[in-house]
């Protein structure tokens, strides 16, 4: 009988009962004796000199324990928040890396930049006193838009980054691309903006710092996707605390979407301040602070051209992108518009020559870094919009032009012209599944039916690929990563046969406690309720690189498999001894160790007991215990891919777009828990639809004020904004290089969806002669397209 909680079973998430009944343990839930509360004094200006800070009134306010500033941190030799990835410009020079201090030193560079903190007995007292901190600002000219920041007369964000340029990078073969364009029969072009987004995790960021003077140990509890990375970055670079005296705990975390990967200044401030004042210090962002200070996502302005032969075969792709990095370099910011973006510009297509240039600039806005998909949604959106335009230019159906240019399954592994090597994928198969699923043949009839109701109907495709399972350490290192990107795991059998798994991955909504337990239950036949997954604590987990880039199962899960391999190897030796058989005669199946051809067998529980009570144990060969640790470094990225199809109806009177159907056919390799995979895809699609139609982070370019600083103006998608989704996957193309054959599913929905929606919107508006609309496709934007195209109607 198959294991009902094994691999491939839709096991309900074991963590949900505690979340749904309010029993989660989030950072803000932690209360310590003698704990204080910290509130930030943040800059109301996008760019200003801080001429002085007068904290006397605040210090005299009720309950105030301390007011601390950048000068205090400087006096204590606190360092700059480090950047984890270095990019080199075309000319070989390293990127500009200006200081990024937890509390500003003399100058603030975005609205929300931290100037001082007030620590008080209660949060309200800290808030009251924060209003009494008098900061003498001298306002400076500001710039929020990347396009203006890149112009010669723009205000300078950092003295050490002339022209606001952090780097001017490129990838690919320019000469080969120029030659491709020289031979082209058709050229498709696009100018597009990839709109800036605010991550909006449900749980705002929070941090709790503690210091134990008896042991000299610091503890930081924080809303992080990767506590070990925070320990490394903050300990080594910011505060100078060695790892053995610094514990970082990331307990239940309510969503991250990338925004909680990074090391933020607030984490360093609470850790530093806790020692300074000798009491625990807690900070929890309110929603307004989250809008202002969580690292934002996307914000690209691009021009792209695609050269084709007369039959619509792609010959060459040329891309120039301007990326907004915000005021400071967030932890992984430089890698997002470069190695996580331009390396994906081949898409699913065998375009032989690609050249991309990316200029990244500083602006007076919040830092920009990875947000669900991180560079890959930007790449997918650009390619898939351009391919739709190319279909029009070449006179081909949008499905046909894709099919004609797909990398065929037979060409796998496929080396793209932009560094990556795809290991597997059958892109035509995804399409073959999708077309009947969405009744593509029936679209014309549906369009006619919509027209009869006065609506404009469109259909859009997005055939996406992404690089996940980040990343082979040697490759990442060669590309500028200042860290390895392996993962660790420890599988500990206890004497009575239950299991604790320690993983360096971190779950903040992904359901690892279920999926990872399924792996163990399957492998050893242990009931799932006897398997505990532990994550998020540097004092418990050997090491970890955390969760982002759809890496947890492909990298973290593979580390668990390696540790289980070790456990099984040792258990087999123990079994051979106990069963008085040769190790080579022991057959292993789902935790049952049998002497081949006999009925003599032992369960893993019997072996675990013997391992800890070693009365009948090969002590001359083996140590007691059944507890193994492994590190797994991936051999390649994984390449989830798929075909998303969206249908929209547009009301021409108002410009309102309704997504009326959305289908996703995905290749995630092998699937461990279909229910969780489907949930991940649903959430991802909603975020992709959100970017396409609703979400937009807007700064006033001159004043640098955030105009969409609350849900009154920043439009998060809600359940009634989206239809029910049709989600399918196939497992015919497992990943070829990790032991589970898995590719990752966490970002796919977001990566594929935006392009599918926008291709559908533009298709619906085809009659008006429009070939592109920037996201978000708001009602007014669409109404204007229609108005501009039909002056007669407008006059009516």
């Amino acid at each position, binding site marked *: 009988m198959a294991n009902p909680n094994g691999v491939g079973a839709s096991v309900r998430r074991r963590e949900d009962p505690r979340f749904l009944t309010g029993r989660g343990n989030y950072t803000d839930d932690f209360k310590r004796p003698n704990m204080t509360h910290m509130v930030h004094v943040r800059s109301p200006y996008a760019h200003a000199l801080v001429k002085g800070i007068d904290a006397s009134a605040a210090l005299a306010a009720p309950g105030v324990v301390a007011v601390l500033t950048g000068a205090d941190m400087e006096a204590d030799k606190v360092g700059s928040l480090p950047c984890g990835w270095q990019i080199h410009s075309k000319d070989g020079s390293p990127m500009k890396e200006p200081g990024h201090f937890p509390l500003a030193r003399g100058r603030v560079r975005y609205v929300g930049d931290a100037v001082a903190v007030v620590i008080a007995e209660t949060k*309200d007292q800290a*808030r*009251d006193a924060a*209003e009494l901190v008098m900061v003498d600002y001298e306002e400076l000219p500001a710039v929020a838009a990347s396009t203006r920041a890149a112009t010669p007369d723009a205000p300078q964000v950092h003295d050490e980054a002339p022209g606001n340029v952090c780097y001017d990078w490129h990838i690919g073969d320019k000469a080969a691309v120029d030659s491709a364009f020289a031979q082209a029969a058709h050229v498709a072009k696009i100018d597009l903006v990839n709109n800036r987004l605010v991550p909006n995790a449900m749980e705002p960021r929070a941090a709790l710092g503690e210091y134990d003077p008896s042991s000299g140990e610091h503890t930081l509890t924080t809303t992080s996707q990767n506590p070990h990375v925070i320990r490394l970055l903050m300990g080594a670079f910011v505060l100078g605390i060695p790892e053995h005296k610094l514990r970082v705990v990331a307990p239940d975390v309510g969503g991250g979407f990338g925004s909680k990967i990074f090391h933020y200044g607030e984490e360093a401030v609470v850790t530093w301040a806790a020692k300074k004042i000798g009491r625990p210090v807690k900070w929890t962002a309110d929603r*307004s602070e989250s809008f202002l200070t969580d690292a934002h996502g996307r914000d690209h302005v691009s021009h792209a051209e695609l050269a084709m032969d007369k039959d619509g075969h792609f010959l060459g792709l040329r891309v120039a992108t301007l990326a907004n990095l915000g005021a400071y370099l967030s932890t992984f910011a430089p890698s997002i518009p470069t190695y996580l973006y331009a390396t994906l510009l081949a898409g699913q297509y065998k375009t032989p020559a690609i050249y991309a240039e990316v200029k990244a600039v500083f602006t007076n806005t919040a830092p920009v870094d990875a947000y669900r998909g991180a560079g890959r949604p930007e790449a997918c959106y650009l390619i898939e919009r351009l391919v739709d335009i190319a279909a029009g230019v070449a006179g081909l159906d949008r499905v046909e032009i894709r099919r004609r240019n797909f990398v065929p399954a037979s060409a796998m592994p496929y080396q793209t012209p932009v560094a990556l090597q795809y290991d597997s994928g059958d892109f035509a198969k995804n399409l073959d599944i999708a077309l009947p699923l969405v009744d593509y043949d029936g679209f014309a009839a549906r369009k006619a039916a919509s027209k009869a109701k006065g609506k404009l109907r469109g259909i859009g495709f997005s055939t996406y690929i992404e690089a996940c399972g980040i990343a082979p350490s040697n490759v990442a290192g060669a590309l500028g990563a200042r860290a390895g990107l392996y993962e660790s795991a420890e599988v500990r059998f206890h004497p009575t046969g239950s299991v604790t798994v320690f993983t360096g991955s971190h779950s903040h909504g992904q359901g690892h406690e279920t999926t990872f337990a399924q792996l163990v239950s399957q492998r050893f036949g242990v009931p799932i309720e006897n398997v505990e997954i532990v994550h998020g604590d540097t004092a418990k987990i050997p090491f970890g690189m955390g969760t982002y880039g759809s890496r947890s199962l492909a990298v973290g899960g593979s580390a668990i498999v390696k540790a289980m391999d070790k456990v099984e190897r040792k258990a087999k030796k123990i079994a051979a001894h106990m069963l008085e058989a040769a190790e080579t005669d022991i057959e292993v199946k789902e935790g049952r160790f049998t002497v081949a051809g006999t009925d003599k067998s032992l369960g893993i529980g019997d072996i675990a007991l013997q391992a800890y009570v070693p009365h009948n144990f090969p002590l001359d060969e083996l140590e007691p215990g059944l507890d193994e640790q492994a590190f797994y470094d991936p051999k390649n990225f994984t390449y989830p891919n798929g075909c998303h199809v969206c249908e929209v109806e547009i009301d021409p*009177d*108002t410009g309102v777009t309704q997504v009326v159907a959305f289908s996703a056919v995905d290749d995630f390799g092998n699937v461990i828990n279909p229910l969780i995979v489907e949930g991940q895809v649903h959430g991802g699609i909603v975020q992709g639809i959100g970017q396409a139609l*609703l979400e937009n982070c*807007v700064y006033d370019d001159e004043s640098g004020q955030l*105009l*969409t600083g609350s*849900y*009154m*103006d*920043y*439009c*998060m998608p809600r359940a009634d*904004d989206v239809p029910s989704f049709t989600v399918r996957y196939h497992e015919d193309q497992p990943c070829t290089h990790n032991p589970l054959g898995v590719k990752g599913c966490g970002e796919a929905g977001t990566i594929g969806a935006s392009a599918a929606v926008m291709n559908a919107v533009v298709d619906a508006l085809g009659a008006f002669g429009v070939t592109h609309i920037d996201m978000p496709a*708001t*009602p*007014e934007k669409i*109404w*204007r397209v229609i108005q501009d195209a039909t002056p007669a109607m407008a006059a*009516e």
Partner: protein
Amino acid sequence: MYAFSYQRPTSLAEAVAAIQADEAKLLSGGQTLLPTLKQRLAQPSVLVDLSAVPDMKGVAAVDGGLTVGAFTRHAEVAHSDLVKATIPALAHLAEGIGDRQVRNMGTLGGSIANADPSADYPSAVVALKATLTTDRRAIAGDDFFTGMFETALEPGEIVTSVRFATPDKAAYAKFRNPASRYAIVGVFVAKFGAEVRVAVTGAAGSVFRVPAFEAALAANFKAEALNGLSVSADDLNADLHASADYRAHLVTVMAKRAVEAAG
């Protein structure tokens, strides 16, 4: 929020007395006031909670219309069989306010006394020839809204109920802000015999009527009667979500939809 004291009077007289205090503020459903307090954008000395004041809740049929207590929550109006039977357009309007949480807390009186330019209820007050009763007088709906967040209420005056006239036909059509779900443009159309009222909310600083639309619809109560008619964009609101031109366009579109919905 800043510290404040809190009172929950159990009679209208007590409430009127309590609100006389310096910097006192009435608390009804709190759907605008509480977020404002949480963001420290207001600092009242005392909140006078109206939830225990009797006779300010519920819906009653009166000659020629309905009386709705000022403390009646949006959800009660939306789900009231009496409202649905008498003025279904009013129930429909209430059902479209904010979201479920807002409707379960927000009140008619709070909405109209706040006079947010993008609130839904002001359009109904004007289109349905409402009369407002306060602790001291009656105010015609036509005279109530005097500007953006401004009303005819005197300091400390408390709205206790609103009487709506029953139209022959009516409907409310709203183009909502996708983020906040307030009205970018909301048009309430009501027909009383030969008279038609068209009241527009969301588009300008305060609710306004459109005499040209009213005249056209009085002659022919059909959507096509509004063909070629529009309001000037000159005095309309413009923000991130909608320009004045677009709002002006939407006024005609929503008015037509309201007429169609009214049947």
